[in-house]
């Protein structure tokens, strides 16, 4: 199973990025091999619909669990349609949150924000 966290840097000491859709990287843990991988979020530079593209990117990587401080409604819809589960992170360390999740200490993320889309024309 693969678990993804939006992160600021591509090293294991990285902090979590507060934006799910426009985070620069995702840190992904494979729970079978216990290996970590970092992927560049190609959606970050999108003019619009970044969250949708970011969610698609994770689906294409077969991610099943996302740990994130927050998530917009469009990304949440894409992830939910693929039965990806969302959990709310605690504190800033990405690494600690993988542990917290595996110990069952993270709560499901339920308050999905309406997103920052729809501005301009």
């Amino acid at each position, binding site marked *: 199973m693969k678990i993804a966290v939006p992160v600021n840097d591509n090293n294991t000491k990285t902090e979590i990025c507060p934006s799910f859709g426009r985070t620069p990287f995702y840190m992904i843990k494979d729970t079978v091999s216990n290996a970590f991988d970092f992927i560049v979020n190609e959606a970050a530079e999108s003019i*619009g*619909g970044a969250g*949708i*593209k970011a969610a*698609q990117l994770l689906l294409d990587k077969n991610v099943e669990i996302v740990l994130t401080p927050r998530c917009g409604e469009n990304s949440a*819809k894409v992830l939910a349609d*693929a039965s990806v589960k969302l959990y709310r992170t605690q504190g800033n360390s990405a690494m600690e949150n993988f542990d917290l999740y595996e110990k069952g200490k993270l709560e499901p993320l339920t308050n999905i924000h309406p997103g920052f*889309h*729809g501005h301009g*024309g």
Partner: protein
Amino acid sequence: MAAKIAVLSGKGGTGKTLVSVNLALAANKAVYVDCDVEEPNGHLFFKPTTIKKEDIFVKIPSIDKNLCTGCKKCVEFCKFNALAYAKELIVFDEVCHSCGGCVMICPQKALNEKDKFIGTVKTGISENVKTITGELKTGEASGVPIIKNLLNKVKDEKELVFIDCPPGSACTVMESIADADFCLLVAEPTVFGSHNLEMVYELIKVFKKPCAVVLNKTTQEKNPSEEFCIKNGIIIFQKIPFDQELGELNSNGKIAVRENYSKKSLFYDLLDKVREAVK
């Protein structure tokens, strides 16, 4: 063919509608186009008799789930990220820009276009003025398709056209001024007003449109918008004073040149300058 004059400003509430409504009525015959589709209010002054109302639609993709194989070619193609593929294809209507690309690219022909209602356009008449008003459905993201429809109606117009633009300098404003022959920039006598005037003036320069400024709500005090005009060599066509009589008429939905406003010559004088500029 008569000229099209766009009336615009960097912020809301500066007097775009005041200026365009009065100019349209002052002209012997004119067309007033309300492109401020998120909050059209010119009709509150004109109280036009509606002669035609039409619904405006944009095209969005609809999926035949039996034909879709999940190849994701459409998802990769969509530059607006309006499509995603989870267990099946998801379309985000409000993100879609109606480009039709996904329909063209689908190898299975699983995508077709369907209409989505986004607002209305009403054509009406008020004395010597023909009014055309666009109204975007609340919650819709972009008024651009409605503005295109509005301006298409006056493409070959023989009379003078006044385009009441949305506030700001974003896509809807660019669409509104694209066909204009002349731009009238309305500005308030504040630092904030002059900052917004500067933004909209930058836009006019990009579009290389001839323009002039109307200073609204002027007082005896220092006017940062006037200073901006002098510094940049922008012609000031008129100064409309901060005036209780005009304020009361306007807030009661009355058009100054239609009423007994003591300074209505301000608008006739402005109209003469505009006519001269577009001759």
